[in-house]
Structure formats: C-alpha cells, structure tokens
C-alpha cells in the first residue's frame, strides 16, 4: 500500500466519530424536516398529517408577515455584519499592537460574550428603557430629552445591533487576533527588511495570510445574523410594528405557538436558501480578492 493510500485510510478513521454524529443529528433531521415541509402537520388537530405538495411554500410567498420578517432580518444583517467586521478587525489589530496588558484587555472585551441572551436583554432593556433607562438618564444630565431607543421604528433595530455588538464583538476579535498571531514572525521581519511600509505590509502580507480566517469570520457572522432571534424576541418582542420581528421569530411563532410544524419547516427551508445564496456570494468574492 502506498504512503498516501494508507494516510487517507487512517484519515477515514479520524473522520468517523464526527461523521457519524453529523449524519445522525444533522443529515437525518434534515431529511425529516424536508418531509415535514411538504406535509400539513398541525399539532393542534391530532392525527392530521397529510401530503400537501408545495402548498406551504406558496402560502409563504403570499404571506405579508413572511416578507416583513425577511425585511427585518435583512436590516439586521446589513447593519450588523459590516460594523462587526470593521470593529472586530480594528480591535484585533489594536490588540496585536499593544505592548502591555494585551491579555487583560482581550479578557475585558470578551467578558460580555459570557452572558446568556436573557441576561443581556434584561441588562440592556434597563439601559434603553424610555423613562427609567440609564441612557436617557445620562442624556437628561447633558440636557437632551428622552430618546425612545426601542419604541421608535427607525431606532429599534440599530439599538439591537449596538447591544449585539457589545455582546459578541469580543469573540470575533479573538479569532482574528489568534489568526494575526499565527502569522510567522519571520515573514513579517523579512518583509520589513525588504523595506515594506506598514500599509503595504498589511495589504500584501497580513491580509492574504488572514483571508482563510477572515472568510470564516464573515461567513459565520452572516449566518448567525440571518438567524437572529433571541435579542429582538426578548428586548422588543419583535415590535414596534413588526420592525424587529425577523424571519426566525415568525417561524418560531408559527411552529411552537400556532403548532403549524409543516408551514414552519417550509419557511425554514426558504430562509436557508436565502442564507446559502449570501454565503456563496461572499465565498466567491473573497476568494477572488486574494487570487
């Protein structure tokens, strides 16, 4: 047996534990969910499960709440992903440039990510509160009147984005910092000896070496943003006027409040299709920017 053959056989053994788990808890449920999406399966009427073809998908297409959910989700994604990327990359570069206290600051930035979504929402619900809120209290001190952070349509989603940035930025910055630190120092030193300036160094050396991890960060953040649920659900309940009720919340309410499993599954598939298109586009664009 050749060296490479033996290596890839060992590889199969290495892959097996994860692959088995993946097939059991991801692939199998996907098949079941696909089955559900073409069925009418309402838990309220017992025993009522029957084939309805594409009826669920057609219903979503004509459902105004489905579209308002997409609109709210997209506004979160568009606000969240670019600001996260700029903020986290800037922070990672800043951390990397620190000569003292880097680990302490890294820990501080990451700390908010340790809170669970319920705690985060309770805390920021108090900050944003119109009358008792901390932010309005501080604004009043400097002579600015009340701002309705969560009850004004134009402000509600940006407020949720700010809270989410505080909550999750540290994690993304840490991944980017780890990637920055994994760049072998001798490459940087060699470039510096060749007289590369700071910007040229970043563009020609750091950025290309960072691209696999940057790609990972952009894609996972986009996927996460499309699935936003907990923050608006707990902070605004999806209001005002459905401005923050994303698609996932609508799916959740359809499946677990109205017990329409089939319709919920069908809309989940549609959300998946949207996410897949976005992720694929990002993958293509970023890959090309390096090549």
């Amino acid at each position, binding site marked *: 047996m050749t060296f490479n053959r033996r290596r890839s056989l060992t590889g199969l053994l*290495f892959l097996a534990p994860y692959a088995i788990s993946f097939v059991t808890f*991801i692939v199998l449920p996907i098949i079941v969910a696909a089955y559900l999406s073409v069925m009418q399966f309402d838990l309220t009427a017992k025993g009522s499960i029957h084939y309805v073809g594409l009826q669920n998908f057609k219903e979503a297409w004509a459902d105004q709440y489905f579209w308002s959910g997409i609109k709210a989700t997209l506004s979160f994604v568009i606000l969240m992903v670019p600001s996260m990327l700029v903020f986290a990359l800037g922070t990672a570069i800043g951390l990397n440039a620190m000569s003292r206290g880097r680990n302490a600051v890294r820990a*501080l930035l990451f700390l*908010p990510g*340790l809170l669970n979504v319920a705690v985060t929402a*309770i805390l920021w619900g108090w900050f944003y509160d119109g009358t008792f809120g901390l932010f309005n209290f501080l604004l009043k001190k400097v002579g600015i009147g009340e701002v309705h952070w969560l009850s004004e349509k134009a402000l509600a989603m940006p407020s949720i984005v700010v809270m989410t940035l505080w909550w999750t930025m540290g994690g993304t910055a840490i991944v980017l910092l780890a990637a920055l*630190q994994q760049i072998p120092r001798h490459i940087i030193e060699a470039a510096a000896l060749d007289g590369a300036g700071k910007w040229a160094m970043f563009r020609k050396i750091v950025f290309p070496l960072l691209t696999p991890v940057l790609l990972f960060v952009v894609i*996972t953040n986009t996927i996460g943003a499309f699935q936003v649920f907990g923050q608006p659900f707990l902070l605004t309940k999806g209001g005002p006027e459905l401005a923050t009720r994303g698609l996932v919340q609508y799916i959740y309410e359809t499946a677990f409040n109205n017990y329409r499993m089939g319709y919920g599954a069908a809309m989940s598939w549609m959300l998946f299709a949207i996410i897949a298109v976005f992720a694929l586009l990002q993958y293509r664009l970023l890959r090309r920017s390096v090549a």
Partner: protein
Amino acid sequence: MKRLAEGLKNGLMTFLGLVFLSPIVLMVFTSMKPESEVLNPESAIPKHWTLGNFQHVLGWSEEAPFVRWLLNSVFVSTSTTLLVLTFSSMAAYAITRLKVPGGGVFLGIIVGAMMIPGQLFLVPVYLLLSKLHWLDTPAALIVPATAGGFGVFMLSQFMRSVPESLEEAAILDGCTTLGVFANVVLPLCGPAVATLGIFTFIGSWNDFLGPLVFMDSVRDYTLPVGIALYQASYYTQYGLTLATAVLGTVPLIIVFLLFQRYIVESMSSTGLKD
C-alpha cells in the same frame, strides 16, 4: 515619540476594554443593592451594600434548586466541550492533512449545513431523541451538540496555515500519524483549539432552547432555563434577577480565565512566536 505612540495605543485599547466592562460592573453592583435602590441610577455604587439577594437565591428549595442546576450545567458543558474538541480536531486533521477522499466536498457540506436555521432541527431531533429514550437525560444535551460544523470548519482553516514542512519532518523522524496529530499539529493550533474550547463551553452553558425542549423535570434543568424559570416568577424584583445572572456567569468567567492562560502558554511553547 515612539514611546508616546505606544502609550497612546495601550491607553486607547484599555479604555475600550473598560467601556465594554462597565455594563457588567453595573450588573454586579445592582445585584448588591437593596430593592429600594435598584432602579435609581443616581448612584451606580450601592449606598447600602447587601448580599441578601444572593442568600435568597442560594437558599435551597424544591422549586428552584439552584445548586443542582449549577452541577447539571457543569457536567453538560464539560462533557460537550471535550467531545466537540476531540471529534472536530480529528475530523479537521483528516480533511486538511490526511487528504481523505472527498474531504473537501464533505467540508463544503458541513459549512452548508451550518446555514440551516437551528429551529429546523428542533422537531426532528426531538423525535429522534425520544426514539433513543434520551429525553430528560444529559445525553440529549451533549451528543447532538457534537454534530455542529463550527469546530471542524474553524480548525480546518487554522490547520491549513500550519507549515507542512514541520509535519514532514516529524514523519521522517518516525512519528506515527496519531503522534504527528497529537504532538505536532494540535500544539501548533493551540490558540485555535483553546478558542474553540471556550466558544463550545459558553455555547453549551448558555444554550436555552435545547434544555427547554428536551428536559422535562425541574431537577434536570440547566442553569439558563432555571434562571429563566426563576425570572418568570420574580421579574419585578430586579435585584434578585440580577443576582441569579451574576451567579450563573461566575463559573463561565472562571473557565474563561483558565483557558485564556492556556492560550498564552501554548503560544509561547510552539516556537512560532519570537
């Protein structure tokens, strides 16, 4: 001039860190205020310090066995993290380095599956767990969590940047595949593995939907669901609610500080730095 720029950089980043910290400090202070002071932001620091909120929460009761929830959470999150790290790192190594046939395609499928909204899995996984008779057992929270693609994707991206020459040198020195994996590749990816460990532990610790749907009896809840149950009945008492939040977060902070040190150690021992 150079020292000034350096000091400015350090100062700016430290300030950013403190800004991020301040809401948590406020949370801790508020949990130590008597209820009459809680919603008064005039003084962030309590006028009358009290641990009464914590005493109330930690007092054992059948309806809210806080210590029991804490132990459940520790067990579930630790087991999940160990399993995820083992499975993911082995799979990532097989895909990126052992060149398993179809490995690249498999990675694509894993990443593709990550895009599927989580709620889609909830009902099918529930049906599956009930067939396995795993409902209301810790296995229901631990085993399905190992299927997520995040760890495999992340470690694959990091393993790609480990110089292949180091691995070849170890093989020439007579190292077995398992030896290369455990003694060369894993340590080199130390920061990434530690980071994944932190993420996995936190994700498991803070998982809300899983225990809510898969656990039936109050005794078997994990902390977040327990806290939520508690909040639902004490929501008007902000001090008590924040005390549970503080107690539920402390174990995570301990784990984070432990792992954070490991990140530093592993980086200085790889020889990649300096």
